[in-house]
């Protein structure tokens, strides 16, 4: 459906709710992920992603990737600041700020950001998560200069035209985004609660990216200025351009348009206390829903850290496809669940591994939890079959190809790899780290990263039916 989810917001874990067979990754980037154990005779080709990278005198990192398949260009900017850079009392601010970035700058009047791009056949959007905020334009290849003009103008001069009225107007829009995407959407209220259940109060991931209504009300013009000066500097950003252009010409254009964007300060590295769960936390939330849903969440290694790739595979073995262990038992055989998903939601400071199951009518979450626990126990005990591993790896590989089909997705993936791994074409290494996983690695990683006594177990139950919540008793007592 054609909706302007412009300035839509992505939380790492949010993809779970939608996808019955969620795979992996950071929600905001069409998640690259994984490789293929080739089926001997018909192994797919290795991919090559040629690119040019340079750094402007003001500190902006630039990556150019030519692809002439269609006459389009994607311009994709990441600022390395997301809701993790907010302070208590101003939660939701990074995302509110993202909205304000579309409202004009010194040489772009209010509304012109969209009207200029639309007249040229361009589309644009942005998204915010804990770690970063991204902005992009997809334009016909003749409009690259226009996109660079718009991006460089707001990077250089946003504050020149900032006013209370601009903040007020987008504040109302963001509050309606919160109502639409969380408050009035079944099961979504949990994503407002989960961060505080998982992280200590002084951790950057302790609050949801969308923020609280009170904090959104409190955000001021001065907050905008402070955030911009601290984090929206060229040293703290990366620009990726992918599509139908000539690299030398595009480079000249970037150098021209971004030459007058002043260098600022490089923000200090984000500091975070260690995040760990000291015990199992059980929470029951009531919602206006027909069927109860179980969520089990662990804090797991950050993106590209040891264990991260293995947990991608564990998620796939548990819940991707009809032969995955949880789907097969809960949905296919026992028919006590409507859907199952599992996901390693990888982020910069800590990741979240989650299992989500919606029960069928007439079934409570303790009954569901018992089976989930049995499968968690099993994956900690014995290595998966070779076929299970192959299915997971082949799926990851095909997903990577699919994610490289459009210039917008290409640009965002290159930017993600640049930021997270230091190289825009890290896709092959990412494939390789998954391909290197041996079945015998899986149980030890699962034992270490998915402990029974350090996790958050949320039961979302229909209003007035707390008796449907998962107690844990059946899971621990009845499993053996």
């Amino acid at each position, binding site marked *: 459906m*054609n*909706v*302007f989810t412009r300035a839509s917001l992505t939380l790492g874990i949010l993809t779970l709710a939608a996808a019955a067979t969620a795979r992996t990754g950071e929600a905001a980037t069409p998640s690259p992920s994984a490789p293929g154990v080739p*089926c001997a005779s*018909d192994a*797919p*080709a290795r991919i090559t992603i*040629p690119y*040019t*990278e*340079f750094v402007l005198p003001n500190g902006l990192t630039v990556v150019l990737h030519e692809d002439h*398949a269609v*006459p*389009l260009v994607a311009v994709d900017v990441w600022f390395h600041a997301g809701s993790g850079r907010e302070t208590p009392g101003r939660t939701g601010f990074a995302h509110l700020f993202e909205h304000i970035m579309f409202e004009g700058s010194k*040489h*772009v009047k209010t*509304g012109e950001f969209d*009207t*200029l791009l*639309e*007249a*040229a*056949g*361009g*589309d644009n959007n942005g998204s915010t998560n804990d770690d970063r905020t991204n902005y992009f334009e997809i334009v*016909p*290849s*003749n*409009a690259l200069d*226009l996109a660079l*003009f718009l991006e460089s103008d707001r990077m250089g001069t946003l504050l020149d035209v900032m006013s209370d009225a601009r903040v007020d*107007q987008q504040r109302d*829009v963001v509050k*309606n985004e919160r109502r*639409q995407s969380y408050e*009035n*959407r*079944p099961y979504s209220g949990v994503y407002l609660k989960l961060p505080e259940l998982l992280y200590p109060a002084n951790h950057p991931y302790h609050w949801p990216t969308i923020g609280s209504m009170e904090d959104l009300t409190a955000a001021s013009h001065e907050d905008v200025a402070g955030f911009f000066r601290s984090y929206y500097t060229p040293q703290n950003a990366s620009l990726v351009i992918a599509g*139908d252009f000539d690299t*030398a010409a595009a480079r000249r254009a970037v*150098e021209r*348009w971004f*030459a*007058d964007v002043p260098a600022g300060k490089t923000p200090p590295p984000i500091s975070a206390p260690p995040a760990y769960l000291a015990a199992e936390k059980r929470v029951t939330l009531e919602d*206006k829903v027909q*069927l109860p849903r179980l969520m089990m969440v662990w804090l797991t290694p950050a993106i590209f850290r040891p264990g991260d790739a293995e947990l991608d595979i564990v998620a796939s073995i548990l819940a991707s*496809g*009809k*032969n995955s262990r949880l789907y*097969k038992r809960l949905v296919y055989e026992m028919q006590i669940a409507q859907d199952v998903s599992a996901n390693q939601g990888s982020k910069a400071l800590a990741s979240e591994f989650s299992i989500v199951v919606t029960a069928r009518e007439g079934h409570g979450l303790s009954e569901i939890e018992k089976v989930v626990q049995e499968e968690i126990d099993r994956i900690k005990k014995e290595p998966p079959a070779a076929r299970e591993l*192959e*299915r997971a790896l*082949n799926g990851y590989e*095909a997903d990577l*190809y*699919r994610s*490289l089909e*459009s*210039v917008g997705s290409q640009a965002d993936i290159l930017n993600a790899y640049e930021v997270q791994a230091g190289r825009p*074409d890290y896709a092959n290494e990412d494939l390789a780290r998954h391909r290197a996983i041996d079945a015998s690695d899986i149980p030890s990683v699962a034992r270490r990263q998915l402990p029974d006594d350090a996790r958050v177990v949320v039961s979302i139950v229909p209003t007035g039916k707390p008796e449907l919540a998962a107690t844990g008793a059946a899971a621990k007592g009845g499993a053996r």
Partner: protein
Amino acid sequence: MSRVRSLIAPLVLLAWMLRAPCSGQTGPDRSAPPVPGAAPTLRLPAIQRLKLSNGVRVLLMERHKVPLADVLVVLKGGAGADPALRPGLAHLTAGLLDRGAGSRTALEVSDLEDFLGAQISAGAGWDATQIGINVPVARLSSALGLLSDLVLHPTFPPAEIERVRDEQLTEMLQWRDDPEEIAGTAFPQAVYGTHPYGRRVEGNEASVRAITRDDILRFHAARYSPSDATLVVVGDLTAATALPLLEQAFGSWKADPTARTAAPIPPAPAIASRSIILVDKPDAPQSQIWIGRVGPVRATPDYFPLLIGNTILGGSFSARLNHNLRETKGYTYGAFSVFDYRISTGPFVARAAVQTDKTGPALTEFFHELEGIRGEIPADELSRAKGYTALRFPQGFESDAQVASKIRDLDLYGLPDDYFNTYVSRIEAVTPEQVRAAVQAWIDPRNSVVVVVGDRRKIEPQIRALGLGPIRLRSIEDVLGISKKAPTKKKAPKE
């Protein structure tokens, strides 16, 4: 600082090193936004029209960007042609294809799909049933064998029928929770009444319960016929390599003696008054607003004038509806409008989810814009809408799956062979008079249905105060036709 990895890069690096340093530059001229030069032309490889030995038509396009292939089997006649007493039959049948086919069980089909890194999609739309597979091209041969089993030799095991039926009924139960699903059910009921487009593709609870295995077998025999089928093939392949594989997979497909093409769907009567349907969703923080009526068929000569008119009204971010309700008033996260084109008369709808306490003011702004678009449209809005729709055309041709669906539509809706190549010039040729005439014919706020799903206690007074027309109150259960207790005794909902 510079890291360079492309083949041409060493020269680029050298050129860059020889340039004067940037520090002395004063910056670019920002006094006016850069004006794009001549627009690029989308150059698509030719659509190759081929035939298998049994007459099955193949539309093939080579695309060599990523090592993938996308293959669609498109069967004419979708949910719009479901029997009147069996809405949801086309959808349920398609959903069962991968639950047992040829010699494979449901789990074996899924195992092979995952092992191949393939994605199978099978479903019924309003106008066609489509079964597709997207796969790394190195594994195309195995994928086509699987696809052909799904289409030609599904086994419809009774246990799988019950599984899929229960899943569908549970999904329908969950629609109650979601205001968008409720509005998306109530709106077509109100616009179309007993016309097939008044249903949902999935049918309703009573019809899903009533469908038998015999219904499914008969439907498959009648509609899954090579004479009604088109294969759309897009990807990193050539006709020479793909055709033998397609022939092997589909060349022996023969029509069942009971095969018959779906009857055409009659046009729906136009909406000739204004009425409001209010569905109570207690404590909802927002109201779903859907306003619309019966629109034209896909083949309408008004297609391009309406494309421009609707782009101005609600088809882009800066369009009037979104600009007013979101950017000016802040009532919503987004407002938009769309013509949902089908073979017969699909709907026009203008939509938003607005905060509960602004439901009345939001409706006022909706009607202001729906009336306003019927008047004189300023030249700058017209030229922006033309630029937007014409120049963003290539965005629909990036992935193999996108291209395949474009080729499918070309075929399904009988569009001319030169349609893609003349698309831009057809937009350029649209005159202001054509836009006005088409908009006045099809966007008519005085003869429209208004569906609002929200907290009745808070919004009913706001809506009544506007005096838009008669208000009919409906419950969620009434709209969805779902009963929790003794469901088998419940009759199909009146529509």
